[in-house]
């Protein structure tokens, strides 16, 4: 079973040299810490940065330089700044190669719900709907089940949707799963020490298990 850093570490292996990547808040943000040396990746922040760097050193925070999570950040050499229309323009035009974000639910046809729980205070979708509607490649980083112990990988989402038929891959504390174009979660890898049975029990949507499922390398 993986902790949050483990999930981030596994996802970092999906990040290839030369990719422009948008990382959502939470576990996805941690992915940046695990991108191997020699893999050149540019991080996009949808408030208008390409080439986002790490947090500033203490005392060097700049109120004018924040990321989409409103955290103070820095710029790397080669960075550029632009307005929000261009930022979502490059996302919509699929110039951003990979989007990694969290989810409350994912359905077996790739629908995602991650912005609203009826009856609870709704804070808004921010840029999530634009990202999921446009990205070429979307990886969801999340826990396999919610706090009530219910599966978050479902036949159909029960919560209001953020986007339809868009998620390509899911990495949880238990497994790596591909969402097949024809529908269904195809089990690709098990987390260390996790059995296929455990994953089956935690997955409510259609799970496809073919052949021997390797334990993931992280």
């Amino acid at each position, binding site marked *: 079973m993986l902790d949050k850093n483990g999930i981030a570490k596994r996802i970092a292996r999906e990040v290839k040299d030369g990719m422009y990547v948008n990382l959502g808040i939470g576990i996805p943000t941690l992915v940046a810490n695990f991108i191997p040396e020699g893999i050149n990746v540019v991080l996009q*922040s*949808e*408030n*208008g*940065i390409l080439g986002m760097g*790490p*947090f*500033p*050193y*203490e*005392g*060097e*925070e*700049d*109120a*004018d*330089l*924040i*990321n989409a*999570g*409103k*955290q*103070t*950040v820095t*710029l790397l050499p080669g960075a550029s*700044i*632009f*307005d*929000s*229309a261009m*930022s*979502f*323009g490059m*996302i*919509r035009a699929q110039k951003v190669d990979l989007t990694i974000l969290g989810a409350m639910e994912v359905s077996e046809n790739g*629908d995602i719900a991650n912005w609203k729980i009826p009856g609870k*205070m*709704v*804070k*808004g*979708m*921010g*840029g*999530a*709907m*634009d990202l999921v*509607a*446009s990205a070429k490649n979307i990886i969801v980083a999340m826990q396999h089940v919610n706090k009530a112990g219910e599966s978050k990988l479902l036949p159909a989402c029960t919560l*209001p*949707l*953020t*986007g*339809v*038929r868009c998620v390509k891959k899911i990495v949880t504390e238990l497994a790596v799963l591909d969402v097949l174009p024809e529908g269904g979660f195809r089990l690709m890898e098990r987390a260390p020490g996790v059995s296929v049975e455990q994953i089956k029990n935690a997955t409510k949507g259609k799970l496809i298990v073919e052949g021997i499922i390797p334990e993931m390398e992280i």
Partner: protein
Amino acid sequence: MINKVVKNAEEAIKDIHDGAVLLVGGFGLCGIPENLIAALVKKGVKNLTCISNNAGVDDFGLGLLLQTRQIKKMISSYVGENDEFERQMLSGELEVELIPQGTLATRCLMAGYGIPAFYTPAGFGTEVGEGKESRKFTFNGIEKDYLMEYAFESDFALVKAWKGDEAGNLIFRSTARNFNPLMAMAGKITIAEVEELVPAGTLHPDQIHTPGIYVHRIFQGEKYEKRIEQRTVRKRN
């Protein structure tokens, strides 16, 4: 050169009336028009509709106008971080319309470019798409469903830039750019406050982000607090 300089925030907003629709620049507390918001609080205009990506925090940004109950409706993409906002929204005092961030930005751009409607995939198949026209397009070989979205109509845009000149030309600094140049273009009357106001001819024409034609009034703001919402740092080794 057409001179756009006004004395201060009070003069700049003198004709903003009850019920006005305002575009307000900024992302979180970054790049917000601090002086203009303070002047609106002082003036006490009511029933405002504010189109702004966020709604500030309880005691800063648009949160100040929420405390005084001057805002009737917020059109935003994300509105967390604000207890008073939550209270007014849940009690029904405040009307809230949530729209995707890219759609919000692009609806401003299109207003500034005189394009009344355009197509975007964001929100298709979700409740954002309910009641909206949708249509399939194939672009670069990929067929997708798109929603038709409209350019924003508004009465005033309130934006904040780093430097500006007498002709109304604006330059933004770092991510304080965000929605500001887009809202500047979209406003029927655009009011810009700047950290530094310089004579015409001082700014390099190639470096101007917002040409003065989009700006109707400009003034140098005072006492910028530029509050940081999430101070995240790392330690030196």
